[in-house]
């Protein structure tokens, strides 16, 4: 309709809404007038009175239906209908307050958890890290081919490349940063700093500091000893000291002056910011700032007005190809570097290096959550279904009187929309609370300092969830109403077919399957911390301290480094309690790729993989690893000639290479063609994955003149004093060196701790799921028992005992639970597979098929659902046959 027409009809439409009654009366009078005139006409044709009336009515058609059709043409009839439906939904909600409340609570939990977690994921992964004009923000990811970084790796930029882009780009205003750990001396622990260019905050979109100021450009040119702190860091570590600006803090032995506090609402990740030109003063291993071929800077930028991302990309590619040419011409190395670039909006999910993993993680997090929502929906479905069946008489009557089935379906849809909307409105509260709760569980110290609020994307997600929940939960009731058999429904008795409805069986199966998946996840994660703490790795963990050292061992500094190590070793051994020192090539619970080991005479490529650990002769005694056969290393082994140096192998290695044979005295060939003689076999350890025996492993003897490697100290007595003593010793030798000595057990504990918080979250979700499953199964069963009362009554009259009825109900439900468990297993398997893929490089022992996990989850679920089954089944057997049959 054209606009002016539309305008013209507004008064009419308004009138039809406002003066409804009047219009009704008008219509009635009009219709009556028509029929009267027809009657008169018929009389005039010579019919008698009764004939004339009947004939007039006949030619007129279905009066009720016609009136309805006319109403429909009046404006906003749909609105009115909707309003009726809402009123109806409200009345039926009031009629059954308890089941409705359960359904609403279930839904708001389901929707709220989903939106809450999505809020968190949205803030972490989907949003660009800036609040100011996110559309002009870009992050740059270079990809080098023909360089040592590997062709398909996303890397960072060298200082030279960054400078070239900064000076030559017109499209972008760029900033760069690098994370670097330092020792925060006030707290005596390692913290991660962000070394940034001095326009970093400006490019991120933060123009004003919360206190003080940001870096000035000159502070980067000469590397001033100044720092900007983030608000969370300032609050949690420095007690929100109001006079912090101008004070000095010590970082890895270097004093820096605090010049400002960055506001927390600007998405600034990190605690301590330093000018990037300070990098050489913190990093003793390498000077990255002047290194022409070490990429270390990550880059972000702002598009200048009038430029698009594609323009910037084209411009940067030109600059980088010029840099590539200069690099190749200048260098004598064989590298022929070629750079390509990816420009993103800065959000985590667009980071090309982690994109697939992030998508996987989101799927793994949102997947189980949507299962909770589905469980909630099945609860609501049950509510509506029982209501629909209870009302089948009324619905049949409506259909018989000419109500269209579409109209009925619409009514049911509105009813479920009504409930879902109430649940959705309640869930908004959760959407605000859940992120905070989760942050609190994960990291209580930072939870209150990070602001995460739902935004339009979250509410869009919420709307989608509500729509999905409405449709899902009303599908089955609509189907039930649609397929209603008018005749039986009007007679007031259900056919035998509907009693053992497939629907109720299906609902039980679905609920069991969904909650099975969630409980499996909970059991799996719940077990991990205990598994980590309770395992026996096969070596000493409590009395051995790792000393992570960061020393420049390049050939130019080698002599100095060697002196440093020798002095350090002597000083550490002088600490009371320290027993011995050991070096190892591998770190426990870190996975390194295995090497190919061959037997003499085997061609390259035909050997077998084994991990190689280059250890000092004191390694086995320090770690308490027993020799099973032969001997361990002697200190004199190291002076033997290269050709017949000794090797110690693990049991697994012996089994793999010489199954059943005696490995002692045999020769093996290392990847570098070194021939080693096996002198001893030691017990297998569990040092790669938690609680899993390592694969074949070979220990080679480290040359005493080597410097570097992982240093371990075996000690007796208590841990803390020794750790402090080691730290002070290292600091005494080199005041700028950062060390946080930890026993192997302590670092393991830290890992277990972080898993515990994750497990807690999953446990909470699984408990919610379990609760929903229980209420769901209970309501489904009590509904179907109610439906079958008459059947039970008749069975009893015919001689069935209460026990046999109870048994049949039990059998029937157990069968459904069984099917549900199988379906759940089929659902859980692919999820586990994905999970396994994501975690393939972590030491967590996640098996694809873990009978303990599946078994215990199935047991738990079965037990709980049998409890939920008991009451309805018991009530069914208490049926008094006489009373049931009397209602016939």
């Amino acid at each position, binding site marked *: *309709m054209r606009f002016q*027409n539309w305008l*013209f*009809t507004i008064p*009419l*439409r308004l009138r*039809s809404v406002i003066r409804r009654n009047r219009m009704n009366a*008008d*219509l009635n*009078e*009009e*219709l009556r*007038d*028509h029929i009267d*005139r*027809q009657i008169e006409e018929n009389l005039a044709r010579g019919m008698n009175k009764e004939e004339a009336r009947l004939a007039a009515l006949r*030619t*007129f*058609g*279905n*009066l009720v*239906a*016609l009136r309805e*059709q*006319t109403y*429909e*043409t*009046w*404006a906003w009839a749909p609105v009115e209908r909707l309003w009726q439906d809402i009123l109806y939904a409200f009345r039926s909600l009031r009629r059954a307050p308890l089941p409705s409340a359960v359904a609403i609570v279930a839904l708001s939990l389901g929707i709220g958890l989903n939106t809450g977690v999505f809020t968190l994921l949205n803030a972490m992964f989907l949003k660009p890290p800036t609040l100011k004009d996110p559309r002009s923000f870009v992050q740059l990811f270079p990809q080098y081919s023909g360089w040592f970084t590997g062709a398909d790796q996303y890397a960072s930029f060298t200082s030279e490349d960054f400078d070239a882009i900064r000076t030559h780009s017109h499209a972008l205003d760029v900033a760069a940063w690098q994370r670097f750990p330092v020792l925060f001396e006030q707290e005596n622990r390692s913290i991660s700093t962000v070394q940034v260019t001095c326009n970093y905050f400006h490019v991120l979109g933060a123009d004003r500091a919360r206190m003080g100021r940001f870096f000035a450009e000159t502070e980067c040119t000469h590397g001033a000893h100044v720092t900007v702190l983030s608000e969370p860091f300032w609050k949690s570590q420095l007690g929100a000291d109001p006079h912090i600006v101008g004070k000095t803090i010590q970082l890895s032995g270097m004093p820096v002056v605090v010049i400002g506090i960055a506001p927390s609402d600007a998405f600034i990740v990190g605690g301590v910011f330093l000018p990037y030109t300070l990098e050489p003063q913190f990093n003793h291993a390498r000077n990255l700032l002047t290194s022409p071929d070490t990429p270390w800077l990550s880059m972000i930028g702002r598009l200048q007005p009038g430029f698009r991302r594609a323009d910037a990309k084209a411009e940067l590619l030109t600059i980088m190809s010029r840099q590539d040419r200069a690099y190749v011409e200048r260098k004598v190395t064989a590298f022929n570097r070629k750079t390509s670039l990816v420009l993103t909006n800065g959000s985590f999910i667009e980071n090309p290096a982690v994109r697939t993993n992030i998508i996987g993680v989101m799927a793994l997090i949102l997947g189980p959550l949507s299962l909770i929502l589905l469980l909630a929906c099945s609860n609501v479905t049950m509510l509506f279904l029982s209501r629909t069946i209870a009302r089948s008489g009324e619905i049949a009557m409506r259909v018989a009187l000419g109500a269209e089935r579409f109209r009925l379906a619409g009514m049911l849809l509105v009813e479920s929309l009504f409930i879902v909307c109430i649940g959705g409105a309640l869930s908004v509260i959760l959407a605000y609370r859940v992120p905070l709760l989760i942050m609190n569980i994960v990291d209580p110290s930072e939870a209150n300092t990070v602001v995460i609020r739902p935004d339009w994307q979250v509410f869009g997600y919420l709307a989608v969830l509500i729509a999905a929940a409405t449709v899902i939960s009303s599908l089955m009731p609509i189907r039930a109403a649609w397929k209603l058999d008018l005749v039986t429904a009007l007679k007031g008795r259900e056919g035998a077919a509907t009693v053992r409805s497939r629907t109720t069986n299906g609902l039980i199966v679905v609920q069991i399957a969904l909650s099975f998946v969630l409980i499996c996840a909970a059991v799996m994660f719940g077990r991990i911390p205990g598994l980590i703490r309770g395992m026996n790795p096969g070596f000493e963990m409590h009395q051995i301290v790792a000393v992570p050292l960061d020393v420049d061992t390049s050939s130019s500094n080698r002599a100095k480094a060697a002196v440093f190590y020798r002095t350090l070793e002597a000083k550490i051994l002088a600490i009371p309690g320290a027993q011995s020192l050991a070096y190892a090539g591998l770190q426990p619970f870190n996975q390194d790729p295995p090497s190919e080991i061959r037997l003499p005479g085997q061609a390259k490529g035909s050997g077998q993989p084994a991990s190689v650990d280059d250890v000092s002769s004191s390694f086995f005694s320090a770690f308490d690893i027993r020799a099973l056969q032969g001997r361990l290393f002697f200190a004199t082994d190291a002076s033997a000639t290269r050709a017949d140096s000794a090797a110690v192998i693990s049991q697994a290695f012996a089994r793999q290479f010489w199954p059943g044979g005696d490995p002692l005295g045999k020769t093996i060939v290392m990847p570098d063609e070194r021939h080693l003689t096996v002198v001893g076999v030691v017990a297998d350890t569990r040092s790669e994955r938690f609680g899993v025996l390592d694969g074949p492993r070979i220990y080679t003897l480290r040359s005493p003149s080597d410097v570097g490697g992982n240093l371990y100290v075996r000690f007796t007595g208590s841990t803390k004093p020794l750790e402090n003593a080691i730290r002070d010793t290292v600091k005494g030798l080199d005041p700028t060196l950062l060390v946080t000595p930890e026993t192997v057990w302590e670092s393991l504990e830290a890992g277990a701790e972080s898993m515990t918080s994750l497990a807690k979250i999953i446990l909470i979700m699984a408990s919610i799921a379990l609760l929903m499953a229980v209420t769901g199964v209970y309501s489904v069963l009590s509904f179907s028992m109610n439906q079958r009362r008459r059947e039970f009554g008749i069975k009893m009259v015919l001689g069935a005992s209460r026990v046999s009825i109870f048994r049949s109900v039990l059998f029937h439900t157990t069968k459904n639970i069984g099917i549900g468990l199988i379906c759940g297993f089929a659902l859980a398997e692919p999820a586990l597979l994905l999970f396994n893929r994501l975690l393939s490089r972590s030491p967590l022992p996640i098996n694809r098929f873990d009978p303990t996990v599946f078994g215990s989850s199935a047991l738990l679920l079965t037990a709980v659902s049998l409890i939920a089954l008991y009451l309805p089944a018991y009530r069914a057997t208490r049926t008094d046959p006489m009373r049931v049959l009397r209602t016939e």
Partner: protein
Amino acid sequence: MSKPPDLVQGTLDLLVLKILALQPLHGWALSQRLKQVSGDVLQVSDGSLYPALHKLEQQGWIQSEWKPTENNRRAKFYSLTRLGKRHLEQEAANWERISTAISDVLRLREV
């Protein structure tokens, strides 16, 4: 079936507009007139006129007014509005074009 098929529904609106363009009528008179002009071709129950009339009124093409008729009765008279007149002209032209096209096609002979 009280609801006429779609094709007829469209033409029913057109017929109603056309008849009302000649003179304002009340519902019953209109139905008589319809029967008279269309003979038995339009198999429509009397009542189905009313939803159609109300729809046309809501669209602003016709307007209604209660007016006294013979022997102290009153009836709701429908008449065409200015908008309705224009709409009728358009629809009539449309109808003309389509029906000419259709009959042209139907008159084609095989060559």
